[in-house]
């Protein structure tokens, strides 16, 4: 049985149209007009048990709406939905005992009382037996190094400390699925790394299925074997992160630092027999060569090395941020045909610089 099974899931919201001006407002008073806005448009996916899946997309792409449907908060407009064998919104109270939810921007802890008091209350709400609770709490506290924070009131914790406590709060009842909505938002790099390591450990040792939304692609790179990318309520990519990179990054950039000022007119002819290679001049002594994947680095390099004196060489892989930005911009994850308009395509960082195609 898959942990999450979604088929043709759709959520529409009725939004009131506000007419312009005072007369418009007056008309609205008596007769309102509504428009149906679909936030999630017939999406389908399956997540097997024990997977860590990243759910990404621009603001307003429908990520949170999906998470809210999966956790039983919202009732879908249409489509089928099964999480842990339950239909979330129908058997909500039974269903939520087996899931953990963390909303990065909202706290589930009591503001004025010690963290441990919140945990105690959650233990009762989730009906966790005392001995199991102790064992679990000790393990989590040790892993996340919360020891001396437990008696402090939440309002006196830093964001990083609070977020670690939120994680513990959502895991006290040992859920088999954990939903995280932007768990690392606003955190410093140390806490981010700590939380990522913790989630990896959780997945490895307890087999917890994790679905997280994030805007930080490093979260995805560190954690997820799989990415689902959403745009305007539709899934535009569903698969491994590596494949996404391979499919979208079409090459790499090799940055040369020369001993004397390079001239593009001299550099371009060097790689004349590789028509896809592009040269860009960076500054006084540096120039970059953009190389598609089908050309070996050694081949291209040997042409330059023989002809010019080089002080330094750097090979730059396209990073995920750039790839994803490109995909968001184009609104589709289906990689465009090779060799077409390469300057604007994902992977080439040369887009906004002076580019001389080698043709």
């Amino acid at each position, binding site marked *: 049985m898959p942990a999450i099974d979604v088929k043709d899931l759709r959520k529409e919201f009725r939004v009131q149209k506000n007419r312009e001006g005072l007369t418009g407002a007056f008309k609205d008073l008596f007769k309102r007009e509504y428009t149906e806005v679909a936030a999630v448009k017939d999406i389908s996916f399956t997540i097997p048990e024990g997977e860590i899946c990243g759910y990404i997309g621009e*603001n307003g792409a429908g990520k*949170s709406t999906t998470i*809210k449907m999966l956790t039983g*908060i*919202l009732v879908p407009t249409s489509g089928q939905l099964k999480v842990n064998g339950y239909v979330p919104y129908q058997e*909500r109270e039974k269903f939520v*005992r087996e899931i953990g939810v963390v909303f990065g*921007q909202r706290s589930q802890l009591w503001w004025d009382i010690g963290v441990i008091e919140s945990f105690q*209350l959650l233990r009762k709400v*989730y009906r966790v037996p005392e001995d199991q609770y102790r064992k679990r709490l000790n393990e989590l506290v040790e892993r996340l190094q919360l020891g001396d924070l437990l008696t402090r009131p939440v309002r006196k914790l830093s964001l990083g400390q609070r977020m670690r406590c939120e994680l513990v709060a959502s895991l006290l009842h040992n859920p088999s699925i954990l939903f995280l909505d932007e768990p690392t938002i606003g955190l410093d790099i140390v806490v981010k790394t700590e939380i990522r390591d913790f989630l990896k450990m959780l997945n490895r040792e307890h087999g917890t299925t994790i679905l997280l939304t994030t805007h930080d692609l490093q979260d995805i790179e560190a954690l997820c074997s799989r990415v689902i990318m959403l745009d305007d309520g539709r899934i535009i990519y569903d698969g491994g992160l590596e494949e996404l990179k391979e499919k979208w990054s079409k090459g790499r950039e090799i940055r040369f630092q020369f001993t004397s000022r390079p001239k593009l007119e001299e550099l371009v002819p060097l790689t004349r027999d590789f028509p896809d290679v592009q040269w860009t001049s960076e500054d006084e002594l540096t120039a970059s060569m953009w190389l598609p994947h089908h050309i070996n680095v050694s081949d291209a390099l040997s042409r330059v090395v023989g002809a010019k004196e080089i002080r330094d060489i750097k090979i730059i892989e396209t990073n995920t941020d750039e790839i994803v930005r490109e995909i968001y911009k184009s609104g589709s994850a289906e990689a465009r045909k090779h060799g077409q308009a390469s300057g604007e395509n994902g992977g080439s960082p040369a887009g906004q610089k002076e580019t001389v195609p080698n043709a």
Partner: protein
Amino acid sequence: MFFHAMLFWEYLKNYAKTRLTYRADFWIEVLSDLAFQAMNLIVILIAFQHTPTLGGWTESEVVFVYGFFMVPFGIFSCFFNLWNFSDRYIVKGEMDRILTRPAYNLVQIMLENMDPPSLFGSLVGLVIMAITSAQMGMTYGFLDILVLILLVAGAVLIYFGIYTALTAIAFYSDSPTGILPLMYNIQNYGRYPVNIYNKVMRFILTWLIPFAFVGVYPAAFFLERSQTDDIRMAFLTPVVGLVFAAIGLAVWNFGVKRYRGAGS
């Protein structure tokens, strides 16, 4: 049921822990609640300076009704402190958190906002009932106590039903409505004898917004006023309570299905 009763205890403990840090706050709240009730009582006392009876009711009787009125109202106020529901749970989206926890959502919200100082009002109400009973030479048997509990429970359910339904409007409409304060004012009519109002008003207070059942009808049972059919009405209190509570819950549950969350 047992589970939710246990949760009540747990939330109460947390409430106490929070409040113990702000002790002065607690007593100020109790005092201001009681001062508010005292003002109402003084209005009644002043009215009786000018007339010996009000619609055939003596001063002691009317004050007794007021005392009874305070008992269910205090209990209701303790558990139903949801006046900022729309703002906190709908606009700020805290309903999300409530819905991901394995306990009935309305119970969770009620317990989170619990206001135990209101119970002092109930206590004072009981004292007022005792004093006026003594003035009128009324005696209570064991059965009377049982009936009192039953009638108070019925009255609490009426409040609960009406205000649950009205609070649930927040699920249907984005903008906060002025209907809650309006209702809060109407409920005060229930603590005076209904026969002083005209027919339309009486009908409304009995069957549509049955606030007569939270004060005057059930209290009349103890006053043994044989000249009216108030006693029969007194025993309708639990029935009306159940009907309105059921309506309130239905509106609420339907509203939760329409909840649309907030923000991103």
